């Protein structure tokens, strides 16, 4: 597939994620939207990985490893995402314990 389709798709998902962060008040949903953004980046990376692989192939580089690094990057992103989720959910739970709400606007003591 032409790479621009992938870019467009990833961008669209990314922006949907951004809009989600902007419009939702539930901390968990907001966090999920951020995960959506990460996944958009993942998808883009994989697509680029295959694009560069394709370029290398067309340049007659037989046993090329072009694109491997991007896929590994995606792997690391997943690793980090997992770690982040564990911490993030812990924080959300902590907050819920204290205020019994996950509304990100509920806590609004820090301002100005």
């Amino acid at each position, binding site marked *: 597939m032409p790479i621009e389709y992938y870019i467009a798709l990833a961008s669209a998902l990314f922006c949907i994620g*951004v809009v989600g*962060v*902007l*419009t939702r*008040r539930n901390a968990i949903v*907001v966090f999920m939207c951020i995960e959506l953004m990460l996944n958009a980046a993942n998808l883009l990376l994989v697509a680029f990985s295959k694009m560069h692989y394709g370029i290398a192939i067309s340049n007659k580089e037989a046993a090329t490893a072009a694109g491997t690094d991007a896929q590994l990057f995606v792997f690391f992103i997943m690793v980090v995402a997992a770690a982040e989720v564990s911490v993030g959910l812990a924080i959300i739970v902590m907050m819920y314990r204290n205020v019994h709400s996950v509304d*990100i*606007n509920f806590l*609004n*003591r*820090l*301002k*100005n």
Partner: protein
Amino acid sequence: MNLVYLIPLFPFIGFLVTGLFRKQLSKSLISIIGCGTILVSFIITVVLFFQIKENGALPVHALFPFIPANDFKIDFAFQADQLSILFSLIITGVGFLIHVYSTAYMHEEATAHYGRYFSYLNLFVFSMLMLVLGANYVIMFIGWEGVGLCSYLLIGYWFKNDNYNYAAKKAFIMNRIGDLGFLLAIFWLLSKLGTANFADVFAHAKSLTSFDITGITLLLFLGATGKSAQIPLYTWLPDAMAGPTPVSALIHAATMVTAGVYMIARSNILYSLSPIAQNVVTAVGLITALLAGTIALYQNDIKKVLAYSTVSQLGFMFIAMGVGAYTTGVFHVLTHAFFKALLFLAAGSVIHAMSGEQNITKMGGLRKKIPTTYITFLVGVLAISGFPFTSGFISKDEILVAAYEHNKIVFFLTSFAAVLTAVYMFRMLFLTFFGSFRGTSEQEHHLHESPSAIIVPLIILAILSAFGGFIQLPDAFGGDDFLNQFLSPVVPAVTHEDSGAAMKEYNILVATVIGLAIIYFATKKAFAVSQWTDVYSGFKKVIANKFYVDELYDMIVVKPLHNLAGFLKRVIERSGIDGIVNGVGSFIQYSARQLRLLQSGQIANYVVFMVVSIVVLFTVFWNQTVIINFLQKIF
């Protein structure tokens, strides 16, 4: 050996001793030091006078370099030539008499104040001597400002009285206006000629353009109008009568106010090169003489009358200067010093006798009570009115002749001013000494003749007033024209164009005699005591109120400046400049208050800002060339 620096030195020592030890020394010691130093100066002056008379001017004596700038050098130098030694004689001679007079006049002051008084007086003599003996304009300026200071200090001598303080301040500030002119003239000279030494300036005066000469001379004349109380800066002098009477005699009659005349006489070479300046001097002198003479007609304060008379007489001197009769002007300074000092001192004696009363309408009939004072006063009045062959007659006569030769209109107006002089002097004489006593009985009881320290100077001055003129008796009357000859190395001698001069002198003599007779009777009738009223009306009121000149100055200069200053202080400074500065501060604080509202505490808002900022950054990136060009254009 050049002893010229000793002349000002002794008064200065006197100033220091009487000033610093005024509390420790007794009054008599202060008197001795105060008068003695002047006497010593006088003696030295006399010695030098005869030296100079014999051998001509002494060489310039530079003590040390005063302002050794890169572009010019100004030495602390003294110069005793014919002109300056003549003035020194007046200053130290008359000064000495007035010092002696003061010992009696001021005797009731507390010791410390007595010492203060004499230190001021000595300082004044010192400054005045600096003024006349300086060998360049800067030293002259030192004296010039110095006498202004002393005048200020002495006018405000009784500092508890705020009116006196205002008068003192007014005198100083008016003088300062003139001083500024003087100073600018010096700068002009320095910038064009690179020197302020009299000798060098006059030697190179021809190399100046006529614009420069006119500018310099007019600025110098501005200085002279301040110091010598001419229009437009004369209003301080009548107010200056707030000072003790001997001070008025010394400073505001005999010496300081003639400094302007001295300066013009000194700079005669410059003035001769500038007809415009000469005309201005003549015109100012003439108008001043007339104006002051007119005002003097309706003044009731004995010292005020004398003050306006001084202004008027100074006008005469300037007329002489303006028409180029420098020697004559100087001569009038000399005779004026005698008779005006006499008049003031005599007036002081009257005031002393009247327990401080100065209003002539409250006097009268003093002829009998204080006869010596009366006689000396009478001599003074006759001299100033130009009674034939008194000193005043001779000097005024010369002025008139010079004026006649210059311009007929000037002559007639000057003559009219001379008539005015006689009128107001006679009026004062009548009101003071004739008729019946109009004061309180207490004053009457207290009336007494003054002590000898007052009387002796009066008598000496009376003699000088009567006969001092003979040193310059015109040829027509068989004189030997001494002063003219004596001064001729410094000041061009007055030469009469034609042989008809003698004729004119006779004419004037006759006219004077007749005129005085008429005036005597007319005045006696017009200002008879019975005719006198307290309230003037119509034009008389205008005159009695001094043509409202003070009010006019107040309205067009003082008030506007005062208001402007207030406006600057309250509006421009506080709201304007400081307002801008503080406004910047307030603006920052205001924006701080507004900006912190962006920090709403809501994540979504923050993220919106971030996203919008990303978009903005992208937009900037797309338009980077446009923006960079724009930035380069404005910075």
